[in-house]
């Protein structure tokens, strides 16, 4: 019964689907990139970050990796750009910018 579910797609005939649509794989959500859904992108400023870690638990998509009690940069393959982390950050270490890339626009930087 166990089959390679990565070969199943919307064109698969019913005879080749798994019984009860069982998924014979683990952590398959990782293979599904939701990053391109984003219209706003968070930018992480590690110099301003105090590692208070208030941002990580509020991320609905688990896109703020934490190890050894320290966060690192965003998982942009899966971040949908909701902006909750920006609101949660007390130190302005997260800035939402338009578009899908974590790049602070040139002219804004110049204006400052």
């Amino acid at each position, binding site marked *: *019964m*166990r089959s390679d579910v990565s070969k199943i797609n*919307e064109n*698969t*005939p*019913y*005879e080749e*689907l798994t*019984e*009860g*649509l*069982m*998924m*014979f*794989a*683990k952590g*398959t959500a990782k293979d599904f990139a939701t990053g391109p859904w984003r219209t706003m992108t968070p930018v992480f400023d590690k110099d301003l970050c105090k590692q208070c870690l208030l941002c990580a638990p509020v991320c609905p998509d688990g896109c703020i990796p934490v190890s050894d009690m320290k966060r690192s940069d965003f998982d942009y393959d899966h971040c949908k750009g909701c902006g909750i982390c920006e609101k949660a950050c007390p130190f302005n270490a997260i800035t939402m910018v338009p578009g899908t890339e974590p790049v602070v626009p040139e002219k804004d930087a110049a204006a400052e």
Partner: protein
Amino acid sequence: MSMKDRMSGNEAVAFAIRQINPDVMPAFPITPSTEIPQMVSTYIANGQMDTEFIPVESEHSSMSATIGAEAAGARSLTATSSCGLALMWEELLVAASDRMPCVMAVVNRTLSGPININCDHTDAMGARDTGWIQIYAENNQEAYDNFIQAYPIAEDKRVHLPVMICQDGFITSHAVENIILNEDPDVKDFVGQYEPEEFLLNPGNPVSIGPYAISPYVMEARKAQEEAMENSKEVIREVARRYREKFGRGFEFFEEYRTEDADYIMLIMGSAAGTAKQAVDDLREKGIKAGVLKLRVFRPFPASEIAQALSPAKAVAIMDRTESYNGHGGPLASEVRAGLYENGSSVKALCYTYGLGGRDFTVERVYEVFDELKDMIENNKEFRQHRYVGLRTNSPEVR
């Protein structure tokens, strides 16, 4: 080897459960099936079986827990009746679509209203389109025999569907009658060990069960489920034959009682079939060629087999112990006649609703039905197609 005994239908099912000794039984009590979990928990307390019994707070939970346990890899079951079955509704469909081979003892009781707790088939008939296999019993013996066949059907690789084993509330569940019981080792041998191929508590072989399916997958999944239900016909037959060979009892899809040369056949399910058989014997003595087709398996529906069995008769009565409010009979009436049409049969049929809310169904009522069939054929009398047995009315033509 077998043992002669006497017990009620509920005792018989509880006895079968003890012999099978499944892994998990979540249950919530409801009349008239309450005795089943009660007796099972007594067996467990007495150390006669080691099923994990889970008392839950509702039938929605008992069905959920049954699905969860089955998904985890445990042979699971529950029991219920009436409103309990109704409360399980959404979970019933989940059990079937997740292809969980769990089993449920259903002790048929009507659904309100008017508020009533007696027998009819409203509960299980309402659940007829949930994807469960449904097998009905005439008496305690059949409830017992059917229960032992449930897991071998459900767990077969060609099926993997849940099974309801139904018996008539109070009429058989609470009546003490003679029964022949199988020896424990024979039952264990017949049912076999449960060896699920895919299950949640299986380290190194991760699986997700019951995922969300977007529209492009749902129709294909349902078709596969429908095909499994069709496949179950073959399996139900095989298991019934194997049971008959080993224990000497039982039928496949239905029992044909004196139908071989019958002019008039009554198609009926459950405890009333015994009463009908007695009436048929009486009518035969008076020279009326009557017969009974007692349907055992309602899901999958053996349409062509039924059509074949009924077609040689002059007229048939299709007996429903529930109402469909479709203007022409109950579920049996609809499905049997669809089956007759599909198989090119033009045998005349009258559809009857009987025994609702525990209304007693006697041999005299059976005579009346056969009288009407005979009147229709011999005297060309026209009858309303959908009739109520023994209805009090001011206008007899309404009946």
